[in-house]
């Protein structure tokens, strides 16, 4: 038992290092966004929420935020319309074919993101929808499609396989069984997927910086252009906005459930 206790510090030390690496910079962004002055200085002095007000007051920042919402909502719509049916269809496909289909649907995830960006750049130019915000949203939706499908598939695996039989015994038509039993049970998976796609889309940088112009750039691209000149608290507040969105979403997803079970209990005894 002594040896087990002696091992703990090394592990915990490395884990703490990992935690600092993962959240350290994010915490600094939050701190920086509420400091007074035009430059980020450590240790921070003063407290102000002015920089957040600046997001709304400053025309270009506000427009960029609206563009980001446009792109993210299109991406969510695309994933819902195409991803949800695909997730429902996958179990109907034979095991061998299913793997091929899953690999095909994950193309956006397995291709280096910059290559995908220029692939869309070319194909949109061919189709004549180049530099259109809706097209950017579609592109982001395609790349993030697996994040819509996975939560639904995992919700399906958690389902009681006897339910369709039970429903049929009670006289439900397959249509009723789908509408009133299977669909409601899938809803947490669908909502989780949609939320994850929304967050990944609204924070997208690589695709947007290739596919948008200075006239319709999204917030991450706007912040990036600003970063090249100065690292100001104003940009920090805009970045902190994403932290706020991510936190909110994470709380919602945790409440709906699934993530904890998906990560920590799956494959366990």
């Amino acid at each position: 038992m002594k040896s087990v206790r002696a091992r703990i510090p090394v592990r915990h030390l490395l884990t703490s290092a990992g935690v600092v690496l993962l959240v350290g910079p994010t915490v600094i962004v939050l701190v920086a966004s509420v400091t007074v002055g035009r430059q980020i200085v450590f240790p921070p002095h003063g407290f102000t929420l002015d920089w957040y007000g600046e997001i709304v007051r400053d025309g270009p920042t506000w427009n960029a935020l609206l563009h980001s919402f446009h792109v993210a909502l299109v991406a969510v719509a695309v994933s819902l319309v195409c991803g949800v049916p695909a997730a429902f269809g996958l179990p109907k496909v034979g095991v061998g074919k299913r793997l091929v289909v899953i690999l095909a649907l994950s193309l956006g995830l397995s291709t280096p993101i910059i290559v995908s960006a220029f692939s869309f750049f070319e194909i949109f130019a061919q189709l004549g929808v180049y530099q259109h915000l809706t097209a950017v949203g579609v592109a982001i939706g395609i790349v993030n499609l697996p994040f819509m499908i996975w939560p639904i598939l995992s919700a399906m695996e958690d389902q009681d396989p006897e339910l369709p039989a039970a429903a049929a015994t009670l006289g439900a038509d397959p249509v009723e069984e789908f509408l009133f039993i299977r669909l409601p049970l899938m809803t947490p998976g669908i909502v989780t997927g949609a939320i994850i796609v929304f967050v990944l889309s609204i924070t997208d940088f690589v695709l947007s910086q290739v596919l948008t112009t200075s006239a319709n750039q999204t917030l991450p691209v706007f912040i990036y252009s600003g970063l090249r000149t100065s690292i100001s608290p104003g940009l920090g507040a805009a970045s902190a906005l994403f932290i706020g969105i991510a936190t909110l979403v994470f709380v919602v997803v945790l409440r709906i459930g699934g993530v904890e079970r998906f990560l920590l209990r799956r494959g366990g005894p």
Partner: protein
Amino acid sequence: MHTSQVAIGRPDHVPIRWRLVDGLISIRRSAVGRRIRTAAPVLLIGPALALVGLLAAGIGFLAWASLHSYDTFLGIQGKFSFGEYSAIVHDRQFQNDLVRTITMASITAVIAVLLAIPFSLVMARSRKRWTRLALMVVIFVPYLTGDITRTFGWLAVLGPRGPLTWICERLSIAPPDLVGTLWAIGLGAVQVLLPAAVVILLPAVLRLDTELEHAASTLGARPYRTFLHVILPQLRSAAFGALAACWALAMGDFADPQILGQGLKDYLANFLQNRYLAIGNPPQGAATGVILIGLVTAGAGLILVLGRLRLKRRAL
């Protein structure tokens, strides 16, 4: 009871929702419904595949463009040739960026996996639920906040008058200027790779047989020996899987060299974009993209095969 009587008497008073359901049921029972059912998988998965087909078409277009000569002055595509490939392979800048990308991707992927093993062990085995939850939230922070917030944070941490400078001044060390160096890129890269490695390792960590560890310590094995000879071998294939994924992700990294490297230490991803947009030679950018896909696929495959090979030799 009342509603159903009304419904029987006057069909138009049946709630719209039930009429819709009845409609769907009659469609399902009809000949059309049977045909829809046989075609169901295609109808359901088809739209998604068509969407992904758009990306596949784009990649195909890149490959096609990379295989034709190109006049950068007139912007006209010429004949079929491997000229673009031989041009960039002999390009000094391409060679430098290629070596830098492969070296950095390998180093950062290994570090990420080495950090992820203790991290996932602590995460999976903590007895306190809040510790597990906190670690879980922490691993999603870099992904959900996005590249910009993440790299902005590093610029603030490493930049002049940031926390790093402050700590160095307290310790009376000359503060290093890390922005624009490989150190900054490496820190940013490990930050995104670590969560991916943890997510891939977790199932294997949860499957670990704790009885074996107890047996080892009962037999007098010291903690580091238990770790090396009991825990690690059980995690080997998952660790190689995590390494392959991290390597592939690191090879395609664009944001970290672009923002933290400030264009001074480019990866292939940045080289691709520069060729495409800044220098105005799309076919060479396209050729870089094709090479990048090839490298990532081959390298990740090789890592997975290496993991298998070692397992087989051990088993014999």
